[in-house]
């Protein structure tokens, strides 16, 4: 029996369509995989389902009732719960307080009946097979426990459909198994799940059916048993995968960046030699230290040992200004937090770093800045109405180009790009990588930290794989493939 039916959903943001007639149908008591690359429209679809956004057209039915464009509260009351990637728990409250928040039990004098709440929470945890102390402070729980707590809370509130948004990213293998066994148990009891994940093995282990989105369009749905991981992957990425490859061997210049025994918070003993025009990929599992290496090189954090030199000049470390003067630039991860200055225009956002370097002459020449802006707008293909438009009026990909321009404008020779395609749609991703190759051609040196190996394969001359803070393998361009990189980044070879 169909529990949820979303039909022909359309949605545009300021004229740009992000969903073009998407449909999704979830049966009672099944785990339904929602597949698609970043930017395919999964989050938008889920935000429409939970009432965070209103859709432009289309209908949503849940358990036979029409819930099209219902409020967040109405959707919640109907029995749909979203278990977010960033968990929606109150870290300063205890586990049971989170479960009962807003529905606290009271005794006849109106004061909280803590004993009853704790015992009910305990019963709930036991029933689900979750091993959490109801009186534990949420802040002290492990990520996996927080996830289970949030699922428990949703079930306590009679949720019939749970949306799990990449629930396994922060979990280890054992915790994933535990989560899956709980999901299977609940499925038997009639609860349905929408499971959003990029990890094919998990999907094929757990899910019953799937829906694939690509670029805001509905591609296919069916039973998991009737498809293969290879087919699902190619449906997700479409034909664009093959067209992307624009990597060519290049003439490399002199050594620009040299690391010897470089150590810092989160990484140790990194030796690296990068030549002018080279593009280096850094990769590994979450927390492997590659992002910390970049931040330390850029002076955000202090190195604890070893030597880093740019074109023969040693960096003392710990000063962003020093790194900038040496010609190092960093595009940090998490664009919204670390790059966007929300109250400023495109022009101001772009010129900020150059202004830091030229701060000695105080006045700003607007005409010269606009000239630079137009230059980078052409060079990088930034789609923007005017230099005075607000930075938040641009799409993620165009914002990222503005920040690349911010650093090119400082004449930096070494570009550290930390997860540069985060939250950017597929088309813009390919464009960003083409740009990086173009810049390398023009003599810039790039280091890219990303977990997306297919993307690295498109651009990197060499790929360094990190495992727990150390470089375990350097792979030349033609040896970069998902399987090999995974083997090294999980250190499977050492344990085998």
């Amino acid at each position, binding site marked *: 029996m169909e529990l949820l039916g979303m039909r022909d959903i359309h949605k545009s*943001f300021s004229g740009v369509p992000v969903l073009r007639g998407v449909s999704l149908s979830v049966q009672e008591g099944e785990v339904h995989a929602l597949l698609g690359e970043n930017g395919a429209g999964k989050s938008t679809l889920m935000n429409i389902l939970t009432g965070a956004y209103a859709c432009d057209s289309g209908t949503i039915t849940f358990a036979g009732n029409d819930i099209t464009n219902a409020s967040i509260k109405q959707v919640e009351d109907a029995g749909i719960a979203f278990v977010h990637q960033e968990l929606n728990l109150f870290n300063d409250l205890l586990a049971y307080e989170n479960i009962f928040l807003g529905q606290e039990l009271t005794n006849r004098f109106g004061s909280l009946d803590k004993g009853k709440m704790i015992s009910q929470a305990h019963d709930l945890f036991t029933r689900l097979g979750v091993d959490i102390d109801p009186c534990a402070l949420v802040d002290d729980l492990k990520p996996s426990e927080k996830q289970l707590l949030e699922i428990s809370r949703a079930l306590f509130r009679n949720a019939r459909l749970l949306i799990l948004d990449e629930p396994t990213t922060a979990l280890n293998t054992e915790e994933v198994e535990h989560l899956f066994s709980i999901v299977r148990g609940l499925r038997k009891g009639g609860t349905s799940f929408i499971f959003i994940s990029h990890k094919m093995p998990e999907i094929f282990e757990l899910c019953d059916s799937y829906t694939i989105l690509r670029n805001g369009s509905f591609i296919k749905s069916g039973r998991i048993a009737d498809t293969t991981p290879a087919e699902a992957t190619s449906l997700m990425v479409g034909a664009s995968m093959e067209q992307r490859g624009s990597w060519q061997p290049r003439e490399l210049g002199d050594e620009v960046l040299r690391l010897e025994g470089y150590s810092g918070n989160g990484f140790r003993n990194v030796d690296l030699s990068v030549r002018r025009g080279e593009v280096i990929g850094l990769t590994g599992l979450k927390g492997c230290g590659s992002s910390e290496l970049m931040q330390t090189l850029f002076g955000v954090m202090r190195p604890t040992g070893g030597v880093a030199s740019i074109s023969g000049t040693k960096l003392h470390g710990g000063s962003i200004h020093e790194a900038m003067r040496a010609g190092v630039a960093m595009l940090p991860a998490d664009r919204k*937090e670390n*790059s966007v200055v929300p109250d400023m225009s495109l022009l101001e956002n772009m010129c900020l770093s150059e202004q830091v370097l030229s701060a000695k002459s105080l006045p700003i020449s607007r005409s010269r800045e606009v000239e630079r802006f137009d230059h980078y707008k052409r060079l990088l293909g930034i789609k923007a109405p005017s230099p005075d*438009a607000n930075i938040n009026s641009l799409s993620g990909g165009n914002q990222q180009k503005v920040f690349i321009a911010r650093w090119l404008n400082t004449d930096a020779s070494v570009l550290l790009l930390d997860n540069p395609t985060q939250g950017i749609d597929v088309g813009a991703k390919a464009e960003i990588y083409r740009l990086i190759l173009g810049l390398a051609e023009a003599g810039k040196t790039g280091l890219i930290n990303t977990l997306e190996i297919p993307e690295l394969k498109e651009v990197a001359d060499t790929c360094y794989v990190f495992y727990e803070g150390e470089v375990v393998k350097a792979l030349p361009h033609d040896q970069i493939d998902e399987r090999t990189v995974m083997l090294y980044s999980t250190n499977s070879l050492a344990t085998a």
Partner: protein
Amino acid sequence: MAVKTMEEGKARSGGSLLGALKRYSFVLVFLAIYIVYAVVSGGLTVGATMNIFRHSAVIGIIAVGMGLICLTGDIDLSVGSMLAFVAGFSVVVFNQTQGSIPLTLLFALCLGALCGLLNGVLVGVVEMPSFIVTLATMLIFRSLSQYECQHLPSELIGNGSSVYRMSSTLPSYQAIYQFGNGRLPGGMPIVGLILLLVIIVFVYLLTSTKFGKKVYAVGSNARAARLAGISVPLMRTLVFVIAGALIGLAAFLWIAMNASSDPATTGKSYEMYAIAAVVLGGISMSGGRGKLLGVLFGAMSYTVIDKVIIALKMDSLINDTIKGVILILVILIQIMGPKLKDRFGKSKAGASE
């Protein structure tokens, strides 16, 4: 969240008349109050209008400093006490240097900047919350100026009791008093001209120099500002130092206008008036947004309210009630306006479907 920012973007890029009115709403507020003043005082003379500048000079200059601090997302509660502190000791310096005006001015600027440096280092470098730091220095500056007034030899404070008084026997006494109370041809008070000069300099600094961009960037997103290469601790310290120097200037004007400074009452509640002027002028208290020009109009709006009350012969104790009510009204309109429009617009769209 994404939807909200998009709306903001739209609102800001809108070059319509409505958009311009919204961006310069502080002018409208001032004009409204000014018209009330014109009506209740039965027509206005040039002199009365010029007087607004005279009475806005001290609070206006302080509010410029406060605006600068608020743009970086901090706050300074110590400005009123600092005014009393610097003014008191500047009187002492004036008396001690046989009435040297340049030395008095230099001392006032330096002591103000030093007081600001104390606030700034604790906020910007040590990273203590500015609310707490300046709350503490507010108590310290006020107490010290009152304590010293009782304990300094009385000839240093012009033989006043519990008041710092400039010694009227010094030859330059007339000159400094003339500076504080004189007018230029056309009726513009000299202190009013100084206020305008300060505003012009700081509007230029904030809109057209790299310094200004950094102030906005730090207030808008300190993390991004840091990763763009800006030294955030330096900027946060610097705005406090500049604000301190401005308070030094305001203290100098104060003693030039009054020839004395009462440590108990000088600058009392000025931190609140300065913050109110900043908010009325449209600067966001969370930083990063707003125009410094608004501060001028915010400060002048409050001066005019004083004058309205005098013209109506109301009890001056009602003064703060009216100022408070106007502040709430203006912010209410700013916050409720878009919400009402949103609700109205939504219901209309719903009906048309």
